[in-house]
């Protein structure tokens, strides 16, 4: 089948970009979307042109590398899938598609469809962990965890950090990503001791990185390839509010002698 692609081409962060039109004649319906771009890139390379840069790695929907906008929707029109697992059979012969990178101040463009999502790593650094040094863990079954809590934590932990929530959000908010980590760790007894500190530091960092705010439109939840729920955002708001209200200064006196 034939597919017409309008792809955002931008050489690097500092140069301006523009849409470039490409026509692909022999698209096989069993190809994945990225395989179709591979074919395009092979053609471009043979013609001596610069291939389209796009992020990808595992191509089985779990690493979170891939992602760009197809006709204004992150990861394209199918729900519950990343773009690497989106297959061409969901498109019609002659379809014209617009491919744009995720757009947000906190996600500067690197090249073409690639953006820099390192802000996510910095948010995790700010508190998205449980402080436990290797070797100091208690016996695993000494911490019973309610099955329900473990399951809900797992639902939140399924986030692959692809950034589609930010891209879809009318406000470029990272709330779904941040709240998924806050909920994952906060729902487990292991995460309880740091729950307040985590909410404070991660939300503060999210603000600092220049993400927008959540207006509860539910857009992120609808396009999340892993079905992470905005219920987590409510939990983040709760945890953060409580953490501010009950905040106490950390002890200044050291404990070592």
């Amino acid at each position: 089948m034939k597919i017409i692609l309008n792809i955002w081409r931008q050489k690097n962060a500092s140069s301006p970009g523009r849409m470039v039109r490409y026509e692909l004649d022999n698209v096989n319906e069993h190809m994945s979307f990225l395989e179709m771009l591979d074919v395009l890139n092979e053609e471009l390379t043979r013609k001596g042109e610069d291939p389209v840069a796009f992020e990808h790695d595992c191509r089985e929907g779990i690493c979170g590398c891939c992602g760009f906008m197809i006709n204004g929707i992150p990861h394209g029109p199918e729900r519950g899938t990343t773009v690497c697992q989106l297959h061409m059979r969901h498109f019609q012969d002659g379809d014209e598609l617009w491919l744009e990178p995720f757009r947000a101040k906190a996600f500067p463009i690197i090249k073409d469809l690639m953006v820099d999502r390192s802000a996510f790593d910095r948010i995790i650094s700010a508190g998205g962990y449980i402080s436990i040094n290797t070797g100091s863990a208690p016996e695993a079954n000494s911490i019973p965890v309610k099955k329900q809590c473990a399951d809900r934590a797992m639902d939140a932990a399924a986030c692959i950090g692809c950034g589609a929530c930010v891209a879809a959000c009318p406000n470029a908010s990272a709330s779904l990503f941040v709240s998924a980590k806050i909920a994952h760790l906060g729902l487990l007894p292991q995460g309880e001791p740091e729950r307040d500190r985590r909410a404070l530091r991660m939300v503060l960092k999210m603000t600092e990185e220049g993400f927008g705010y959540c207006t509860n439109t539910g857009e992120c939840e609808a396009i999340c390839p892993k079905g992470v729920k905005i219920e987590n955002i409510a939990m983040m708001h709760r945890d953060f509010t409580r953490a501010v209200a009950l905040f106490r200064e950390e002890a200044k006196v050291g404990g070592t002698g």
Partner: protein
Amino acid sequence: MAFRLESRIPSGPLEQKWENAKRDMKLVSPANRRKYSILVVGSGLAGASAAATLGELGYNVKCFCYQDSPRRAHSIAAQGGINAAKNYQNDGDSVYRLFYDTIKGGDFRAREANVYRLAEVSVNIIDQCVAQGVPFAREYGGTLANRSFGGAQVSRTFYARGQTGQQLLLGAYQALQRQVDAGRVKMFARHEMLDLVVVDGRARGIVTRNLVTGAIDCHVADAVILATGGYGNVFYLSTNAKGCNATAIWRAYKRGAGFGNPCFTQIHPTCIPQSGDYQSKLTLMSESLRNDGRIWVPKKKGDTRHPNDIPEEERDYYLERMYPAYGNLCPRDIASRAAKVMCDQGYGVGPGGRGVYLDFREAIQRLGRNTIEERYGNLFEMYERITGEDPYTVPMRIYPAVHYTMGGLWVDYHLMSTIPGLFVLGEANFSDHGANRLGASALMQGLADGYFIIPYTMGHFLAQVKPGGLDESHPEFRAARQAVEERTKKLLSIRGKKTVDDFHRELGRIMWEYCGMARNASGLKHALQRIPELREEFWQNVNVPGSGDEMNQSLEKAGRVADFLELGELMCLDALEREESCGGHFREEHQTEDGEAKRDDERFCHVAVWEFAGEGKPPVRNVEPLNFEFVHLAQRSYK
């Protein structure tokens, strides 16, 4: 010159060895640790856990990964689970049993002491991961749930839905980011290691390329850890991520690190087959599907009828026919090989005749659709997403695919390679899986190496060397950097007619055909002739567009494929020299009368450690004999 392969296995009874080793190790005092710097290349389970733990201990750590974030390393794709000898199910599991299963599963081509240690620390891994907040599956009582995996007779596999690898990696990644925040680890994402720098016989640093700006940088350290994963992508199509590569370990090999058993690759029987030439990777389907699915091909060659139109009597359930006792549940290597044989004979189905049916019709009739949905719902969904076919009504098509490489850089008991100061962890090393890896063991090994072994052995090494004393102006660093720059320039200057992928696909075809599931001397010799020709052509006729001082994905690929073109040759050479069949390595000349793998413990109960002898010279094959003091070598039989 030949290697001095000193495995440094500690003395004493099996269960005392690791304790004894730890007791005898030298220590670096907490105040001195920050004076030592360590480079960790790779941020998967092994790399991230090592970097985080060494950071916690107080060393200066720099960690590198080619992805945009350490959380994306390919460990994330592991589905099934992680083994540990916790014996929570009271079903007779023990450290010894896990050790024995692993060493037997590896067809007795791994070191006893290493494997025992792996089984021993497996229990600590679970404790650590639970404390980090890994959301393992739970029972209603709040304790951890287990399942049996890969035909094991005990339930020792811990899992987090079908995303165990992801959750374990996120645990390690979070620990790593915590150390980044604490200033103990400096993270270099989107950096690819392009060379290892050896000064006075010791690994002292690496040369990297910043994938965004193209900047070539040197990093100096007191020790280097490679945790860069396997090299399955030498086959072009594999279940590995697109970016997985052998460049780091191959550069190290060329700087003097021994390469252990390069031909040991694992081919997984249940993957979704290739649908066309454009195919970029293969997707694994959990092998648990074989518990209820029946594998068959049409009895007539080249039968193009729809599978549902082929009557029962015209179907050949070949695994049940050939292996009546185990049937569809025979081990990975046997199932894979049988599928290839059927397809080679012309019975294959689907595009290109490269596939066999995995049929659930009988199971659905017997158990009902609901039961099948409960057991395999998510897998069926994944299959349908990729192929567009509904496996509840049309049989699945499956075909084997390259999945894991047991071979890798040779390391001693301390995980140190033949280059002092160069440590290799996880899939990148050759150590614990012998000739075949059991399900749910890869995650265990990666984390064992990173969390619980390297922190001890690294300290022992560093305690014996003085920190620092070197910077990047050293001639070795300058030379390595220059070599990298020249190679980059060379790749960009060829401007030939074929793309990098053209060469990679061709190499993959050769490797799959001649060094894949079944190997024989004449095929391997043919490959050994073809690969150098292809390599020659690559360096004459490859087209790498763009420049070196920008984000250039073609250039990245070209560098990796250039290394694969050398590694492929070494794999074939190793396969040719190993004149026996064992685990994933099946030599057609060495099989029993019933077509089973025939090991030759007399001649090949050893690790083949290859040594680079210089460009254009044949590599040297060294041998580390494997001594089995505690287990008895047994022959596998699945009839």
